[in-house]
């Protein structure tokens, strides 16, 4: 069927409500009799927790309950929160309890939960809960954590090592021994947190008559949270329903299962009333997962002509206090390093390390931006050392389109070999260079230098695994009214699923996309789901919607053919009817067909089609599909203040076939803004006791409208052969390559001073510091 809606920049169905203040986010939901929770949290990064005196709090007006670990029901006390992605490399899979049992391992870990008539009263009472803490030595840096005699992040642990794993391609050591050139770079990278504008939150409602829980939660995947609730409370499938309403941004960490959700469910059962908890911004800084620190020590070996023969090194990755996503984050990082380049020999030893800070899990880009920064810093180094143009060094090393599908030789976190399905990396870079007038930069730079201004340009390339399985599902259903609904476990946080998935279904059903209602993230509507993360929804949910709607269309034709006594092939779908191609006035409406499809009371349907004008599909991709992009940043650095201004930013991006160009542009540009923050501003600072010092937006800086440049976009379209729509993920590419391009540009601007950039973010203070070192003769 021809695409009417797929590929069209149609307006979003989500917008009219959002623009009128009629969205329904978690804190907009008010249930009758609802109580409110506030948490007592550890003020220490590491402490033994002793006696908890809740008497004073309990006597305060409006207070209904104070929960401590001892008050939790047996199945909750027995378990730690579920570790969703176990892995044999995990040596010490530490996970937290719903409330601290006896040892707090990061500042903000919940120790007690206070339930009161209002949040104001709950916070008043939380202040009156007295907790005996016995501070323990805390570890605040993942390198120090590996040192001899370092404090242990968990008392009684064998060490601070959560996991060690190697990646190997070819024989790196032998390749290095014969190399013409070997260059070494030590790179420190820090990414902050997601910092969605809507903090986390949830409402638990226990129904005593049905002995079941309804959890409304601001999440990225209702079904995974349902599974966690079932495990924590030892319940049957029918006893938990999770609904995710509108979500004000997620960026990864809203996909996790957090202890607060368990506590409010316990409290709802205890009080017999719904209980709401809304994270405040300070709690968000303390307790929502982040990405933070990686220390890289890397070497690259090249031939005289800059062809790479090997890359090797070590990555120290901070996991924080616990490992809710196992080794997913460092694994994605490690497997992203080779990128678009032919690297015959590769060896990376990864160690994931505990610290006494909130755990690290994927934030937009999910460890990939760090890998790209590392690889692209190495490429710049090769260019500098061999006095070659940076774009040329990259060009000489690209995987060629003719080599697709290309097996990199390592195993990705989907359990499959990293095999790029399609893409034209040389063309992508060429497009970005052309659009950014890379060739003309030399004269722009020279001109500016005459005026005492320091311009720089930077390039980065990235390949991104997207569309990770195992699946997402969709049910397409035409009701007996003729109205069309699509149900999916995909859980949007701004990605526009209600529009894009409607576009896909509308094409199959021959209707306007406004006639398809997409219902997301309610576990009562579809039995299985994974949720929206890892740039996976277009591929997984999109393909499932396509397949489900296609089946419904076929079924509608079958039923109509019977009703109209004609051949299915003579029929077509249009505007809510199945009609004769040759005589469009001869038709049956979706309503009539749907009524027929459900049968008539008492009459046999035996031997016929399965009842209902509906179909459920779970698209299970064979492996990830790989998007790619080239970013070019042009910056000006003020050598007095260290301020960096981004003058131009160009993205050439290939995410396969595009469902809605307007929406994809928005995803890419928004992703770049996140990268701008990571490259220049965002830093979580902790003191030596792992006490966070940046706990508000006055100290932790997010990029503003004046910091983010206009982004020029070039779309390339190499369809993926691995799904029926030919799509690839688009949600993270903007972030993944942008940090590396900005760092490269800053270094290029500071070239006259011999300054090299080996860290992210690179702040104005740090730039001034580096220039000062140069002035004192302490640079290379």
């Amino acid at each position, binding site marked *: 069927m021809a695409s009417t809606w797929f590929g069209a920049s149609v*307006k*979003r169905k*989500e*917008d*009219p*409500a*959002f*623009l*009128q*203040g*009629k*969205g*329904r*986010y978690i*804190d*907009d939901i*008010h249930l009758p009799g609802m109580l409110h929770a506030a948490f007592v949290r550890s003020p220490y990064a590491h402490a033994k927790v002793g006696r908890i005196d809740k008497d004073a709090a309990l006597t305060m*007006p409006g207070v209904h309950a104070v929960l401590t670990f001892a008050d939790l029901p047996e199945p909750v006390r027995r378990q730690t929160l579920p570790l969703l992605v176990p892995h044999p490399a995990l040596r010490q899979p530490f996970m937290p309890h719903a409330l601290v049992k006896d040892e707090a391992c990061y500042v903000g870990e919940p120790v007690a939960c206070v339930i009161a008539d209002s949040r*104001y009263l709950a916070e008043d009472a939380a202040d009156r809960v007295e907790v005996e803490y016995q501070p323990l030595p805390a570890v605040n840096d993942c390198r120090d954590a590996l040192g001899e005699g370092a404090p242990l992040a968990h008392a009684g642990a064998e060490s601070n090592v959560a996991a060690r794993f190697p990646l190997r391609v070819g024989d790196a050591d032998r390749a290095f021994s014969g190399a013409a050139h070997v260059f070494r770079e030590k790179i420190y990278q820090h990414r902050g947190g*997601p*910092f*969605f*504008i*809507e*903090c986390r939150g949830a409402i638990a409602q226990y129904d005593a008559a049905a002995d079941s829980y309804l959890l409304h939660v601001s999440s990225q995947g209702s079904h995974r949270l349902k599974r966690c609730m079932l495990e924590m409370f030892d319940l049957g499938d029918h006893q938990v329903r999770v609904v995710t309403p*509108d*979500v*004000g*941004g997620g*960026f990864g960490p809203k996909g996790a299962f957090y202890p607060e959700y368990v506590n409010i469910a316990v409290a709802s059962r205890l009080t017999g009333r719904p209980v709401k908890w809304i994270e*405040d*911004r300070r709690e968000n800084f303390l307790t929502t997962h982040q990405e933070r620190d990686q220390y890289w020590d890397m070497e690259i070996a090249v031939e005289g002509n800059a062809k790479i023969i090997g890359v090797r090194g070590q990555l120290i990755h901070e996991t924080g206090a616990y490992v809710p996503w196992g080794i997913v984050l460092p694994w994605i990082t490690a497997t992203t390093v080779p990128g678009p380049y032919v690297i015959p020999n590769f060896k990376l030893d990864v160690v994931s390390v505990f610290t006494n800070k909130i755990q690290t899990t994927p934030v937009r880009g999910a460890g990939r931006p760090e890998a790209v920064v590392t690889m692209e810093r190495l490429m710049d180094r090769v260019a500098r050392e061999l006095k070659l143009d940076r774009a040329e060094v990259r060009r000489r090393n690209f995987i060629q389109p003719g080599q697709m599908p290309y097996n990199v030789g390592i195993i990705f976190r989907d359990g499959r070999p990293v095999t790029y399905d399609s893409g034209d990396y040389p063309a992508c870079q060429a497009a970005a260079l052309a659009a950014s007038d890379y060739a003309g930069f030399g004269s722009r730079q020279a001109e500016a230098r005459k005026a005492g201004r320091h311009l720089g340009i930077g390039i980065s390339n990235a390949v991104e695994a997207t569309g990770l399985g195992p699946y997402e599902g969709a049910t397409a259903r035409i009701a007996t009214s003729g109205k069309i609904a699509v149900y999916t476990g995909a859980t949007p*946080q*701004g*990605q*526009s699923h209600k529009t894009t998935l409607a576009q896909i279904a509308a094409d199959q059903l021959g209707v306007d996309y406004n006639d398809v209602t997409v219902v997301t993230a309610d576990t009562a509507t579809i039995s299985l789901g994974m949720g929206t993360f890892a740039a996976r929804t277009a591929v997984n949910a999109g393909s499932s919607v396509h397949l489900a709607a296609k089946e419904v269309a076929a079924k509608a034709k079958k039923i109509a053919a019977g009703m109209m006594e004609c051949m299915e092939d003579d029929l077509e779908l249009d505007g809510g009817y199945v009609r004769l191609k040759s005589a469009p006035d001869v038709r049956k409406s979706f309503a009539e067909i749907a009524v027929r499809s459900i049968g008539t009371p008492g009459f046999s349907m035996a031997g016929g089609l399965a009842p209902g004008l509906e179909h459920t599909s779970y698209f299970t991709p064979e492996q990830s599909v790989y998007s790619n992009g080239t970013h070019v940043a042009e910056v000006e650095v003020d050598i007095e203040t260290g301020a960096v201004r981004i003058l131009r930013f160009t993205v050439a991006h290939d995410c396969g076939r595009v469902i809605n160009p*307007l*929406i994809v*542009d*928005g995803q890419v*540009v*928004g*992703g*770049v*803004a*996140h990268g701008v923050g990571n490259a220049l501003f965002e830093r979580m600072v902790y003191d030596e006791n792992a006490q966070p010092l940046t706990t*508000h*937006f*006055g100290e932790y800086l*997010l990029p*503003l*409208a*004046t910091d*983010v440049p*206009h*982004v020029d976009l070039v779309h390339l379209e190499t369809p993926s052969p691995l799904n029926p729509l030919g799509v690839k993920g688009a949600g993270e590419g*903007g972030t993944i390559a942008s940090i590396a391009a900005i760092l490269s540009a800053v270094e290029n601007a500071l070239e006259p001073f011999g300054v090299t950039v080996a860290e992210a973010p690179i702040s104005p203070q740090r730039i001034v510091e580096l220039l000062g070192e140069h002035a004192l003769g302490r640079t290379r």
Partner: protein
Amino acid sequence: MADTRNITVTVNGEAHSREVETRLTLADFLRHELNLTGTHVGCEHGVCGACTVLVGGTSARACLMLAVQCEGQEVVTVESLAAGGKLNPLQQAFQDHHGLQCGFCTPGILMTLTEFLREYPDPSEAEVRTALTGNLCRCTGYQAIVAATLDAAKRMRGGA
């Protein structure tokens, strides 16, 4: 015991009288007392701008004001913008340019821009960007918001 006051606040043209705690923020008053949940709370310390409303015609952070400070005042929120359910030119331009993704920061941004476009009916891109520095958006990268604002200004000058 909690200290309370009786206040009357006119919100979107309608007077509301309530007995409120003196510590109740304007944001919580609007959201939880009046059920006007379009005004969002993003940081509670006046940086993100999601809670921006107009008080006496001037933009204000509803998270940094107390409800009692609005006694006798006129407050205007995002709910007032679409008269009769029809998006106003600024709202329509936001939809046309994909100026919102998750939509959470959007009400505050719309209120900031409502005030801004009144004072700067023909702004430059740089002026729009500066006007937006009091609002954080984590989704869009601001580009589509800027485009929408410039287009809205044009439409409004044209009397759309």
